Every structure is written in C-alpha cells, then in structure tokens.
C-alpha cells in the first residue's frame, strides 16, 4: 500500500517587506507581497525525499484566502501530487486552536495518512503551535524541530534540535513531524512541472465540505483575542562616544558604576 504523506503549508507576508498600517497597527496586506513560509518548503522537501526513496502520495494542504493558490501551485510544481486549500470566509481571524482544528478536520476528510509534515513555525506568527495542535486533534504522536528525517518500514527516525543538544527519536507511523527552517535544500520547480501544476490546479474546500460548523472556526472559534497592538519602544540609550584615548576613563567608569566587578574575575 502506498505511503500517504500530508504537508501543511502556509502563505505568509514576505518578512522583508512587512508594512504596518500606522492607524490600525495591523499588517497592510495590500502593500505586502505574499510568499510560501520558508520552513514549509523544508517540510515539503523532507516529504519529497521520502517519496523519492519509497514512493508516496504527497498532498499539500493549507488554510487561507484564495490568493494562497500561488503557494499551492508552487508546491505541486516542486513535486506534490495533490493540493487542497481550506478556504472560507468563516475561517478568517483564527487563532491556533481553530486553525489546528480546521487542518485536522481537512486531513480526516482526506482519509488515510501515514506522515504529516509541517514547518517548525510560520514566519508571521511564529507560534509553532499549529503542528502539535493538529497532532492532538488527530490523536497521533509527534516529532517537533526535526533537522533530519528518515522513513523505513513503518517507522520515522528523526533528529530533534533542542537547546542542550540533539535528540534522536524513532516513532511508528502515523506521526506528525515539524521540520526546522533551512534543514535541507528545497528542490527547484522545473518548467515541465510548472505547466503540469497549473493544469492540475488546486482543490478548494469550504467548511461545509470539510464538515465544520461556522461557529467552530475562525474568529468565533478562537479562545484568544488581540486586545491591542503597540510599537515596541526601546529604552533610550546614550551612545556616549569614546575615542581610543578615552578608554582609560571608560575602564574606570565601568568599575565605578559596577558594570564590571573585580571579585567576579
């Protein structure tokens, strides 16, 4: 039986070009270009390498507005077999809970799956919470922050990069794996594949098709709300200019003000 792999992807504003509306303090979406979240490209590549090795059906799924089509087509052009966009006006304004719920319900609707891949986090919200949330909704195990992933005979083996070192784990499928940014080099889209991808196109599923009630999802299904946004004000610093001749004075000042302490050295 062929391996079924799902890859969760997200279209995000290009972090190089984020424009904040000075009145609403929100992202000005019309002035910001959208791109595929980079870590999700690494997740797709990890999936395609398993497909190369043992054969697999790779389905990319996303939740987002219709313009996420460019991301979905791009994923097909890189080698995914199927693209499903969960898109519905009811999905807007979701926090991590209904986002995970919507994606998990979409995956359930697809049916059988062996491995679910996602990027470690999205560059725009940086929570890293949606992947593990999906795993909890689907009641499966997970491997987060993977720097390398391998599959053999029903088991996924992966290295996890943690603060204190690298942990190697082995988990039987089904399992959800979140992949570290820059952990591999995503393959290029070829012209041939691009043409096929456009021909194939994506499927768009709404709440009804997925089997979700409108009040479960989007802003209505979100436990958290944003009360306000404010610019981060940095502490004003003096930037006192010191030339090389003044370093003696600086050294004295550092000890006088106890910025340096003799007893610690």
């Amino acid at each position: 039986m062929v391996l079924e792999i799902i890859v969760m992807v997200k279209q995000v504003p290009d972090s190089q070009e984020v424009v904040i509306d000075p009145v609403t303090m929100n992202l000005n979406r019309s002035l910001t270009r959208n791109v595929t979240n980079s870590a999700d490209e690494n997740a797709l590549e990890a999936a395609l390498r398993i497909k190369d090795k043992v054969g697999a059906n790779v389905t990319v799924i996303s939740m987002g507005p219709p313009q996420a089509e460019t991301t979905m087509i791009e994923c097909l052009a890189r080698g995914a077999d199927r693209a499903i966009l969960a898109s519905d006006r009811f999905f807007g304004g979701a926090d991590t809970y209904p986002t995970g719920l919507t994606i998990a319900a979409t995956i359930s609707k697809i049916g059988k799956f062996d491995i679910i891949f996602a990027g470690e986090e999205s560059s725009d919200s940086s929570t890293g919470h949606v992947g593990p949330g999906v795993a909890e909704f689907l009641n499966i195990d997970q491997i987060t922050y993977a720097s390398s992933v391998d599959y053999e005979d029903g088991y996924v083996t992966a290295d996890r990069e943690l603060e204190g070192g690298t942990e190697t784990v082995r988990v039987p499928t089904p399992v959800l794996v979140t992949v570290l940014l820059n952990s591999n080099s995503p393959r290029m889209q070829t012209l041939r594949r691009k043409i096929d991808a456009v021909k194939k196109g994506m499927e768009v599923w709404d709440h009804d098709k997925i089997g979700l009630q409108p009040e479960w999802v989007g802003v209505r299904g979100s436990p958290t709300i944003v009360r306000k946004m404010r610019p981060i004000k940095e502490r004003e610093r003096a930037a006192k200019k010191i030339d090389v001749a003044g370093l003696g004075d600086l050294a004295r000042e550092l000890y006088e003000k106890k910025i340096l302490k003799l007893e610690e050295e």
Partner: protein
Amino acid sequence: MAGIKMATPAAKPEEYKNVFVFLETREDKLVRPALEMIGVGKRIADKVGEKLYCLLLGGNIKDEAKEAVSYGCDIVLGAESPDLSVYRTLPYSKIISDFVKEEKPNIFLIPATRNGRDLASRIAVSCEAGVTADCTELDIEQDTRILSANRPTYGESMLAEILCKKHRPQMATARAGIFPVPDRVKSPKGEIRINSVKVDKSLLKKEVLEFKKKNAVDLTAAKVVVSGGMGLGKADGFKLIEELASEIGGVVGSTRPAADMGWISRDHQVGQTGQTVRPRLYVAAGISGKIQHIMGMKNSETIIAINTDPNAEIIKYSDYVINADLYEAIPALVNSIREEKKKLAPAAGK
C-alpha cells in the same frame, strides 16, 4: 483523545483558581527557564492572592521538588516514573492535561523552549484552553483575573496584547531569558505532592535512541558577554574577543553570519536563531546590528559597541560607542582594564 471539536468556553471561569507552571527538566534537573517560570508565576499568583503550583515530571524528582519550593513554589504536583525520565510528548501531555482537568488552574505558564512548545499546544487543545505563544511580558488584571499575555510580532517591531476571556485555563508560553530567575525564599514552606505513576504503554511508542549533548556555552547565565561579528574580518579575530572576554570575566558570543563563516561554533551564537542574553555588560565588536542579532541582546543592562561605522544600527542600542578599528581598540581597552584593576586590587584586598 481530543477529537475534532470546537473549544468550549469554561462554564464557570470563576471556579478556576491558582497559577500552574511547568518545570522543564533535563536529566531530572531543573533547567534555567523552569526557574524563570517560578519567578513570573509567583508574581502573578501573589498579585491576586492565589497559589503557585509547579508541575514536575521525571524519573527521580524529589530533590528538584525541594529546589522548586526553595524558589517560592507553594505546591509541587509531581509524577514520578522511570518512563518519565526523558521528555516525551504523549505521556507528558496526558499526565499534565489530567492535572489541569482535576485542579482547574486559572493560569498555566510553560517555558517557550522547544519541548515547552512541543507540549503547550497539545495541552491547550486537550483542555480546550486558549494559549498565547512566546510571551515577553505577562501580567494579571487584579479584578478580572484575566491574564495579559504580550508577545512580539511583525519581526519584533510590535507588541501584541492577547487575552483569553472565556476559556480556562489561560495558557501562555514564555520566552526563555526574558523573565528573571527569582531569589530563593528565606523560609520555604511549600508542599510537595509526588505520586508514583504507571504510564500506559500506548503512550510510550516513541523511543529516544540517543541524546548528543552540545557543549554549549550557557550565554544566558553570563554576567558579561563579549561578541564578535563580521567586522572581525577573519576567524583569528575571535582570539582578540576571547582575550577581552577573559580579562573582564566574560564569555564569548557571536553573530550568526560570523558563525556561518565557521569562525566560531554555533554554540556561541546570540540572536533570533541563537541564545537570548541579558548580561550586565554586552560588548558588540564589529557587529552592525541586524534585527536578528539585536533581538538576542537588546535587554542587556549596559551595551558597548566597537565599530568603525558611525551610522551602524548597533549604535542606537548602545550606551557607549567606541568608534575605532577594533584591532586597535580592543588591545587598548584590555590594557586600560588591566591598569584599572591594578589600581583597584589593593582596595579590593582590604
């Protein structure tokens, strides 16, 4: 199993009381972010006159439970089993979710470390709670007992304040290195409740085959950090950085590009993809001040920049700016420090 279902608001939010924090361990020892959680959790609990509960799981946790009490924890809720000696998602999330469902805390804080994030979202889904990720400011409103969870967004340029009004507990993960480690309390009188537990086999299918420890320099605990960037121009430049660091009792840090060049190991990296530091003194030598680096060091108490470019971004974040070639300035600074120490040494000896 969570199942595909919506998050139901708490029927009676007023029944949820007290503050939970998760104490992360490595080899059954508390990690620094665990102590940071005790500090922030205690502050929030005290403000509304509630208790701080510390959740501690592991193979042998009795000593660390006492340690948690010594830092001000009121009640340690512990689960002990050889199967819990290494963090694994499923047994930890199941046991902790059960604690939450039984004790009904108003607030639950988890360090935003990698394992902390691995855990937090599973518990939030399992308990139908709201969770705010990677907070850098946390407070509680006294009358409503609503958690004000603040997190940086849009490339750290904005701070979003996020509330969870109807769902309980109100969960947050807190960025490591932001909240201070509390002082030990004078006469600790917390209560320790540790249960030996039997973990269901179905939760233990993940095998942890190996853990390769990084000999990482713990920059987060350092009082003084001296960092070098691309302005060093070559790997040898780090010898100069080391010389200054050792003269002033500091540790060596670096920017990501300098580590990318292979001039120094990644273990020294400060910034978004490295460690977040807040030492008493941070020296940035040959560092232009890209946002990714600034994020990891801007909360340092005092910052000295050594840079030839008078318009470098780092200068905005600096208390002192040595506008000179670092190959000239650092040896001169080392000399000045030595001279100053000679003057001070007799006084210090008295």
